[in-house]
């Protein structure tokens, strides 16, 4: 066996790959489900917190800032471990999927809230005044005038952060979640061959590259001239 053959046999072993392809695919499906759940709930929760914060009720805002800062400081892995191994002693035992989802959604919520909030506060005061002076209410102004402008400012940082946190679905392996990485590494230990990991890596690229490209497209679409 030449060195090159040995390399192929080790990392791109077709027999091993064929055998574990179904496992990897089921990992892909689970990862997609998890990623969608995290993105939708995390962004929505972050947006709702930012909107509540803009109402400006002091004690509520302090609470929001506290929660957001906690989840921005904790490594996502630590959150997952705490939820999965810690919550059961509080009488609530979420599955591996729910633990990973909750944890990543909370982390995404925290970062998204800060990004939405920055967008809302950087919209000029005159926009509020013009809208309110024509009789729009606080919430009408927030939703029709301020938020569209704020969202445009937030798209770039928000997509970056969302992609980074969604890739954290791989952290679910620590709680034995059968997502791509979990499936790939158990296939590696069963086959004594790292080829499944290469499949896993390829699966991540296939999954996330379109998202990255779509993010670019959204950014360019929302870039109206000021």
């Amino acid at each position, binding site marked *: 066996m030449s060195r090159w053959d040995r390399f192929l046999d080790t990392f791109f072993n077709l027999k091993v790959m064929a055998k574990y392809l179904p496992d990897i695919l089921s990992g892909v499906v689970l990862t997609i489900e998890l990623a969608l759940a995290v993105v939708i709930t995390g962004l929505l929760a972050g947006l709702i917190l930012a909107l509540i914060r803009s109402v400006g009720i002091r004690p509520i805002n302090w609470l929001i800032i506290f929660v957001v800062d906690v989840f921005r400081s904790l490594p996502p892995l630590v959150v997952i471990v705490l939820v999965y191994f810690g919550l059961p002693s509080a009488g609530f035992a979420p599955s591996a999927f729910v633990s990973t989802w909750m944890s990543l959604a909370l982390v995404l919520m925290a970062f998204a809230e800060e990004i939405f909030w920055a967008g809302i506060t950087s919209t*000029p005061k*005159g*926009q509020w*005044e*013009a*809208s*309110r*002076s*024509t*009789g*729009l*209410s606080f919430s*009408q102004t927030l939703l*029709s*005038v301020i938020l*569209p*402008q704020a969202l*445009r400012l937030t798209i770039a940082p928000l997509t970056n952060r969302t992609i980074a946190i969604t890739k954290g679905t791989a952290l679910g392996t620590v709680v034995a979640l059968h997502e791509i990485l979990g499936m790939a590494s158990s296939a590696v230990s069963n086959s004594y061959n790292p080829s499944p990991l290469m499949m896993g890596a390829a699966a991540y690229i296939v999954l996330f590259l379109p998202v990255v490209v779509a993010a670019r497209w959204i950014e360019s679409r929302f870039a*109206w*001239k*000021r």
Partner: protein
Amino acid sequence: MPPIVSAKAIHKHFGTLHVLKGVDLDVAERELVFVIGPSGSGKSTLLRCLNRLEEPTSGSIVVDSIDMLSPRTDINHARQRIGMVFQSFNLYPHMTALGNVTLALRKVAGKSRAEADVLGRAALERVGLADRAHHRPAELSGGQQQRVAIARSIALEPRVMLFDEPTSALDPELVGSVLAVMRSLRESGMTMIVVSHEMGFARAAADRVVFMDHGLIVEQGPPAQIFESPGQERTRTFIGQIQRH
């Protein structure tokens, strides 16, 4: 006839700063009141108190028989009757000119999109910008933007219009187009309160000039009297300063 705007004993504090120190201002229907005064004298704050963008510390404000400071007043409804035009236009950058004009028609006046579009186009027509309905603010000149802002207000058929230095942010060659729109508004019988440095406009169009200094109305009267023979030393000094520019 009772005044359409009646502000009595308006005080406004910003923390320890006493910005309005008991201003009384009555404006009759169809009157154009022109407000002048040094920077920081409280002109903008007074205008902003009239539609309650700023909450007066004390005093009373009645506009078109509505007690603006009563907690029972629906302030959003009342604000439809008081148009406001800002120095910096404050158009919504994510909407077209027509979108800017129709937003409050739909959300506040409860018009359908079709009705709002008709009224919005009519308002743009009045400021001479019917052909710019589908342009975004960034595609319009400063003068055009300010005229769209005026259209946004008049589309709601307000009883009073407040102008806070509407031409101060404009290049000199664009000032005329905005003043022309303001003059035609005046000819249509609109009640207007205008804070501005455009003394030529004041002479030509104002019924009354009000001079403010340090949070008080120092002197008021017809333009000729205030500009030619002011009774107060402070007024004379101020008029002298702006005429030298």
